[in-house]
């Protein structure tokens, strides 16, 4: 793949919490408009990778490129300006703030008021329930609605890459279905998506390419459909099915 098509490219990336190294030599690419997933067990470093890719956590080695530019030392606002949005694990809505204000926080760095208002309507179109609940506090929403609000907040920044940490964790199957439909809509508008998902089967079905992370290293990478048929993957991550 050519580097120019890469929205996000990590090369031998290292990351640590204090003295504890969590990511080792992680190389991972998300191209423009592409849908990619990272799978792996708890503690494999999936969330840590997203934290690096949104500037919440500085990297200790290797390279992180966005649109081909080195992001060493960059803070979250720099990643947002380069059109990368991060929907964090656990949604992290502003609980005592209305749904509408939560969504507007997603557009915090933007100043094009008319466009922001349009995008707000666009989010309400994708998630009609949010329009109904626009004046309610974020903390009063159900789990599925909170995830919708968090994703809506993410796309309010008009990202070219939307990173979602644990799309379906703890949500009802019906809510997950709605979220998947929404993701496909968002995808069709040209936004690349990097997905972390504990339901490996769903993740592989949804995406084009996948990376398997194990104890902080990429142990496998390839086309999702191929991986879904890989006996080793089935044994390791779908054994319970």
């Amino acid at each position, binding site marked *: 793949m050519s580097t120019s098509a890469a929205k996000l490219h990590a090369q031998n990336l290292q990351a640590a919490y204090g003295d504890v190294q969590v990511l080792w030599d992680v190389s991972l690419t998300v191209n423009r408009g592409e849908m990619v997933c990272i799978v792996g067990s708890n503690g494999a470093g999936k969330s840590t990778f997203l934290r690096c890719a949104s500037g919440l956590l500085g990297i200790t080695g290797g390279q992180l490129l966005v649109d081909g530019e080195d992001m060493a030392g960059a803070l979250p606002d720099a990643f947002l300006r380069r059109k990368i949005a991060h929907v964090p694990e656990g949604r992290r809505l502003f*609980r*005592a703030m209305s749904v509408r*204000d939560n969504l*507007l926080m997603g557009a*915090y*760095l933007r100043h094009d008021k008319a466009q922001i208002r349009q995008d707000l309507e666009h989010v309400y179109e994708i998630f009609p329930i949010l329009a109904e609940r626009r004046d309610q506090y974020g903390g009063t929403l159900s789990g599925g609605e909170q995830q919708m609000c968090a994703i809506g907040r993410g796309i309010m920044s008009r990202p070219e890459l939307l990173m979602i940490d644990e799309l379906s964790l703890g949500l009802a199957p019906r809510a997950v279905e709605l979220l998947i439909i929404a993701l496909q809509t968002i995808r069709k508008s040209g936004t690349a998506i990097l997905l972390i998902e504990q339901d490996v089967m769903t993740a592989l079905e949804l995406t084009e390419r996948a990376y398997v992370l194990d104890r902080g290293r990429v142990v496998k990478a390839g086309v999702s459909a191929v991986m879904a048929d890989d006996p080793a993957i089935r044994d390791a991550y779908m054994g319970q099915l």
Partner: protein
Amino acid sequence: MIYFQVLANGLVLGGLYACIAAGFSLVWGVLNVINILHGTFIVLGSYIALFSYNFLGIHPFISVITAGALLYLIGHLVQSSLINRVIAAPVLMTLTLTFGLDLLLNNLMLVAFKADYRKLVLDNPLGRLELGPIFMPLDRIAAMGLALLLTFLLHRLLRDSRIGRAIIAVRMDREAASLMGVNVSRINAITFGLGAMMAGAAGSLLSIVYPISPLNSGMFLGKAFVICVLGGLGSVPGAIVGGLALGVIESFGAIWFGPEHAVTISFTLLILILIFRPAGLMGKRGFE
């Protein structure tokens, strides 16, 4: 009916108290910093009003703007250069820092302005309101009105502006706020600046009610503290309710128990509230 008069006195005082507490509450709620400097900021605001009036003939109501602006700058600077360095530390650390800064600033004011109580005497008072049994200087009513107006404006700023949303977002979840592109250190500095601005503005308004001395800072700080506990932390409507309540309680306390017991009454109240309604009278944990 003396009680109407007492009630009116209490409400006028309470409006000013609301203004004192709003900034203190904002800083405490958003930054988790108990700003011991707040009382000294208020006194500094009073001195700005006093000197502006005595030397330049500027009415204290106009000085609200200059005192507010100047204190905003001082607050912004203190937060961005000093407190931001230890903002992640436990609350005792920031408390110690603001306590130390308060000793410094307050003693500088003692050296510069002396401890004497001074009074700002208006040359042309607005006269007084006589409403049935109630007598009230119009200047005080205007000061209360301005104090409540400022507090209301702060409330609107937090609710309806982009910066206000960012301040509330930082209060609720720093990391999520930074994921939205919010520069948390900058919002901290703006928040502390706004708190200091409210103190400076309140100080200007108080200059026509209270005698002015650096020694008053502890009293103002104590009141801000009690009002925050009364009204609930980090809520502007809470500061208004708590401020008015404390003003009225103090006024009635003064005629029933004697004015020397005003502080005793407010701190007894503090202890009772902490025992029975630790979340405050408004009883909400959210932010408005």
